[in-house]
């Protein structure tokens, strides 16, 4: 927040009464949307503290009329599962490299697409973006066959590489769009000063793209953390000691059939990490990263 205040002068002057009144519709719309977005989640949160039979027979808001229903049983049940912490740690082991690798690989490609000239550049670029539409389900069988041959099945490396491949079209698209918007003069003056493309990339393009890289890191981490399908196919039964949290949750809810209310408790336990990543990286969405460098 402090970065925003420094670079936005209008935040420093005290708003007059008229300014505040003028902002009233803004507050009304923002708060209305926040309430609409929150209600479904609050329903799940409240239900995660109620016994299963009560959840199915009465609305979550009844909780506020009968607070004695409150129970931590759902959380206790989820947390007492054998190996749930292993699943949690495995999810981190899977998600962190599966976020870092595609960001680097995509940044190289995005820079080449944005600032290097070569024949067929635009066509190749849209083919890369077009690969976003390939349904992942169609790739599992051929990839699994090759993984089996080279003995990658069940390993973390198998999912890191797979998530990199699957995440690259979006990552390249987002970063190329952002890098393409950077001012041409910056790169031209760097080239005149004798900087190599590697220097221009590491010293100019990457620092100036920090907001886009932060956004990409948030989403790639989120997709991998919440992924069930890719983990199920490439790790799954082949090596259950490497299974991520999502597989544990799916087994917990699935094996017990009717115990779907446990999902609420499981969902809130699982959400903690991606929300932490979001809060941690949100401070990079600040004004002035690009604006400042053009003048220099």
């Amino acid at each position, binding site marked *: 927040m402090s970065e925003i205040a420094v670079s936005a002068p209008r935040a420093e002057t005290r708003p007059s009464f008229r300014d505040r009144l003028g902002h009233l519709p803004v507050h009304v719309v923002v708060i209305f949307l926040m309430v609409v977005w929150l209600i479904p989640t609050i329903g799940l949160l409240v239900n995660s503290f109620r016994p299963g039979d009560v959840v199915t027979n009465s609305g979550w808001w009844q909780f506020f009329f009968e607070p004695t229903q409150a129970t931590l049983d759902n959380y206790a049940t989820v947390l007492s599962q054998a190996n749930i912490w292993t699943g949690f740690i495995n999810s981190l082991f899977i998600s962190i490299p599966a976020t870092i690798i595609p960001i680097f690989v995509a940044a190289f490609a995005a*820079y080449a697409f944005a600032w290097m000239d070569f024949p067929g550049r635009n066509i190749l670029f849209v083919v890369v973006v077009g690969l976003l539409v390939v349904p992942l389900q169609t790739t599992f069988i051929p990839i699994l066959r090759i993984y089996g041959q080279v003995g990658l099945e069940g390993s973390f490396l198998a999912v890191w590489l797979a998530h990199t491949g699957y995440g690259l079209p979006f990552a390249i698209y987002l970063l190329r769009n952002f890098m393409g918007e950077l001012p041409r003069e910056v790169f031209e003056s760097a080239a005149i000063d004798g900087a190599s493309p590697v220097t221009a990339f590491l010293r100019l393009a990457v620092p100036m793209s920090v907001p886009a890289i932060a956004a990409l890191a948030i989403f790639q981490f989120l997709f991998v953390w919440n992924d069930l399908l890719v983990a199920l196919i490439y790790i799954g039964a082949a090596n259950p000691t490497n299974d991520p949290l999502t597989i544990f949750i799916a087994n917990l809810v699935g094996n017990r059939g009717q115990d779907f209310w446990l999902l*609420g408790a499981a969902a809130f336990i699982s959400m903690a990490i991606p929300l932490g990543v979001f809060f941690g990286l949100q401070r990079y969405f600040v004004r002035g990263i690009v604006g400042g460098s053009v003048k220099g």
Partner: protein
Amino acid sequence: MDPRLPTAIIVVVGIPAVLVGYILATEQVLRAFPERLKPRIRPWLWLAPALAFLIFYLIYPTIGTVISSFQDQFGKNWVGLANYAWFFSADDGIGSLVNNIIWLVLLTAITVGVGLLIAVLVDRVRYESFAKSVIFLPLAISATAASVIWLYMFAYQPPGHAQTGTLNAIVTALGAAPIAFMPTSEFKFNTVMLIIVTAWVWTGFAMVIISAALKGISTELLEAARVDGANEWQVFRNIIFPLLLPTLTVVATVMIITALKAFDIVYVMTNGNFDTQVIANAMYTWMFTNGNFGRGSVLAIILMLTVIPVMIFNINRFRAQEAIR
């Protein structure tokens, strides 16, 4: 201590080191080539890691899908265009395609429209960070959990009984009869309901990317316009919106593709019943439940073909961007 911790540290430090090392090494490699050839070889060295991943994980399997689409269910005999003919005659074919078009229009309009609205409005309030977190929250929830949440929202009890669903509690509190929302065959807007659930999840995605672009617009430019007497609407219409347009195209493209690939919410909430079938769910059912790879592959191919108009639009836009910068 987890015995894998040292491995983890090596991986987290080692992988970036290897990747940065690779890009530094490209210039060393280029030294071996005459000056004239360097600019022609360099882009391919920068693209090589990405292309290797894409060819292996996406292009190679897609070639297999194209081949399967001309074969029978066991992938043994060639059947020509029989699977394609099936697509145009089956309920799972055109019906799914129509539903996907409804998805495409509504999901893209809601997520990009509301995402833009929120990104622009929260830029003016002090609780920006908190407001954005609230809209972002559903993205952190898995599709299964999101489906359970919305089954609580849509739940229906006959008139006279206490309602357990949030929406029907509101409807009956307002004095109206409860609505038998999905999943029922009488309800005509099942697909719209699934789209609302998905939009609730994805609006935060649109908002975060649009907001990141919004922060890239220079404050001086906006202040100058305000000093010149432009009102807030004119500032938005004439400065902010045009500058956000490239980002809005990216977000809209990703949302269109998300709508075309719509799968998990449909799979969990209705599995394509009650007129909610979409191509990706039909593909999954034909491939993995019915074990017919020929038909499943045709559905995948149709899905991939629908993206071509979007990509043509993108090519034109990138040419325009390069012409002006």
